[in-house]
């Protein structure tokens, strides 16, 4: 695991230039049935190299990191407590035979086919009514943050590509952490 963290640190350093490929169009939270939900829309701009790989039927896996943190303070030192942490993987692949793009959510097993890549990417970047936690778990007056991050998983690339992905910045598809402040007791 340490090794993995080391590599991730190196990759994070080299992937700073690629944050602009993932942008947040919209994010909002709301309450429904005593549940905290949120919607988000990400715009994904894949590099030609990644698109080329997809069209050569290379399956790509994207990881969406979702966290709900509570901001606490110990004396004058602020810190975050993670209440919810969800990481789920979505696989995007193209079938030349069927001439369609397929999104496969490995978390819930949903599969969707698309004729256009943009449609698939739009669906990939859409989180609608994502249930985070029960409102009973949250306390009024405290500050909460929804944090969202989206990235391409390098580790699941085919081995030959992995070497290239470690070197080439075109494969650094990763967003920064997007944050949405949430306060209990009011609806944004």
């Amino acid at each position: 695991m340490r090794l993995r963290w080391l590599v991730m640190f190196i990759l994070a350093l080299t992937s700073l230039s690629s944050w602009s490929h993932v942008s947040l169009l919209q994010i909002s939270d709301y309450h429904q049935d005593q549940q905290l939900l949120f919607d988000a829309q990400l715009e994904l701009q894949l590099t030609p190299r990644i698109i080329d790989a997809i069209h050569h039927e290379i399956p790509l896996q994207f990881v969406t990191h979702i966290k709900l943190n509570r901001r606490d303070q110990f004396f004058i030192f602020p810190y975050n407590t993670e209440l919810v942490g969800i990481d789920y993987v979505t696989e995007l692949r193209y079938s030349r035979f069927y001439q369609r793009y397929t999104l496969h959510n490995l978390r819930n097993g949903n599969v969707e086919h698309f004729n256009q890549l943009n449609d698939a990417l739009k669906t990939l970047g859409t989180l609608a009514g994502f249930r985070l936690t029960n409102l009973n778990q949250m306390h009024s007056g405290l500050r909460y943050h929804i944090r969202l991050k989206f990235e391409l998983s390098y580790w699941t690339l085919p081995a030959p590509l992995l070497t290239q992905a470690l070197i080439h910045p075109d494969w650094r598809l990763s967003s920064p952490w997007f944050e949405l402040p949430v306060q209990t007791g009011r609806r944004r």
Partner: protein
Amino acid sequence: MKLIKHPLIKQYGWIIILSALLLGALFLMSRILKNAPHFTESYIALLIFTFIGTLILVTLLVRTLYKLYKQYKQGVSGVKTTIKLTSTLTLLLAFPIVILYYFAISFIHQGIDQWFDVRTEQALSDASALMRANLDHATRDSLNMTLRAHSQLQPLLTQRPALVINELRNQLNAQEVALYQSNGQLLAFSNAYGSQILPTPPSDALFQQVRQRLSYAAVETLNDGQQDIIRILIPVNDLFSNQAYPLQVVFAIPDNITRYAQSVRLAESQYHELNYLRGPLKISFTLILSMVLFLTLVTALLFTVQAAQNLTRPIRNLVQGTQRVAQGDYSTKMQVDRDDEFGVLIQSFNDMIQQVAKARNDIKINHQQTEVQRLYFQAVIRNLTNGVITLDMNRRLRTINDTASDILGVDLQSHVGERFCDLMDDTNNPHLKPFFDAVLPHFELDVLRQNELKPWSEQITLQHQQQQRIVLLHASTLPSIDQKVGGFVIVLDDITELVQAQLNAAWSDVARRLAHEIKNPLTPIQLSAERLQFKLAAKLDDNDADLLQRMTRTIVDQVETMQTLVQAFIDYAHTPEMQLRLLNLNELILDITSMYQSPDNLEVIHTQLDAQCPMILADSARLRQLFHNLIKNALEATENITQPQILISTDCHQQADKITISIADNGPGIPEQALNWIFEPYATDKPKGTGLGLAIVKKIVEEHNGRIELLNPNSQGTCFVITLSKLNADGV
């Protein structure tokens, strides 16, 4: 534990283990690259492990090379051989490895390129297109069949769907038929496998599409690609409610078609994937192969260095051993821990050093014995009263004793090693000419051959520092092991005193005979002459009487002269027993000189006496005679001098154990040629005198174990120096 501590394991073990692990990692990486997706996540770990392992090996290599460099700088024995061996073996290894690497890279690139043959790609595309066309055709047929059946059964489908749905499925020979309301609620369905299996509802998007009066027909894959179906979705219009009821018909595609389609799809998919990965594959294989090459070279270099060091270790030990032996440490013994030729060599070296040490010890003992013998002979030669000189075959001085130097009057010790004849050429040694004239002819090779190496003897006379030495030479050749003549030995025998003693003995004998034969008749002759004078003087006339008187007077005078001469001979010849008594030398000298001082010559005789002179044990009568003779000689020598001066002095400090007495005058001196015989009997150039004065003086001096010599013969005047031993003062 024993195995781990084994030298081979210690030297090569870690390198072997690390290299094996790295090679294993690289092998796994190559397998992953080929087709092992389940290890893909380990690829990076393996890659990093490989880099770290290679880095460790490189560090080991750098450390090893640095150690070699340090050893080279320190001049450690064997390191140059190690470097040469390592360089040679590395070159020998690297050359074929690099060639192999080049060809392997080429083959890999060509092999990967050959995977993507144009005909294969075309065949795959055609097969895919064919399969797609087939499925499209089936899809269109299915759609058309559904549409035709729908047109035939349309009123019933909306009015009594439960009745006709089964008939529709049988008519279409479909796997499943389902009719939904526009909101997606299932109205009726029929399944070939029974009514227990509910139909799979289409997605919301498809419902939306049908609500827009659009049909849907497509091949779909179910059960994770295990089954292909044709899904047909058409709107069934209800004329009364004007609603579109989605009618879904699912046609099963035969298994063989599905299998072929999956096969073609999979092959095409893999082909395209591999085609895309062609470049990265080449790079990855090149990287792995380069790592293998690098790993092989580094490992080979490490192995080579270690092997070379192992190979040169016995050589290094041998060099260190020889260096210790060269420094004189013959106790060196190296450990024999090998059973190969080096072990035999080390054992032989140990044996050899043992033999050398033993031989050296024997030589040392022999040398010590020789040295003892040499010192023994040197001591003998040094203490010999004879002079001894040895020469080597090149006539170089080898051994000289002090007596030889004394006899020859040259410090020969400072000339040891020089050529003997060089001494002859030395201008400081002209007095040695008779010596060389006598010796060198005998050392000529021709003479040596003719004389057959016989010893020879010869007497020579050397003149040095107003002294005459009579030397008897004995010479012979020295033996040699490898040559006939190993050198020469010359024995010098100073026989001056012996000859002098013989001469003195002869003179004493002559004196005794003279005294005996002449003295006895002299008195009758004198008495007869006086009697003749007395008896005949009155009987003769005046002239005759006067003649008689003169004649008898002459006879008496001559007889008295002869009596004086005879008395002198008697004195010289007579050696009375010494009457040694303690006497004060200064008082004796003052007493004698006072006898010669008259009012006329008060300023002639002077004394300069050392008041510190001790009493000496001597015969005062003999010393009186000695001083009388010398003073008398001095007075006679200064008779014709305007201001005659005679100085008598004593000195106790010039020599520690000697008393020096000098009697000097300012007379004409003694000619140099007279020096040889001045002290010999009857050696006078004076018209009057017996010629025995100085001989008697010398005799008295020698009787007192003293020495007399004449100084500064060429300067004005004469100076006799008498040296008496202080031992006399102690009564010894």
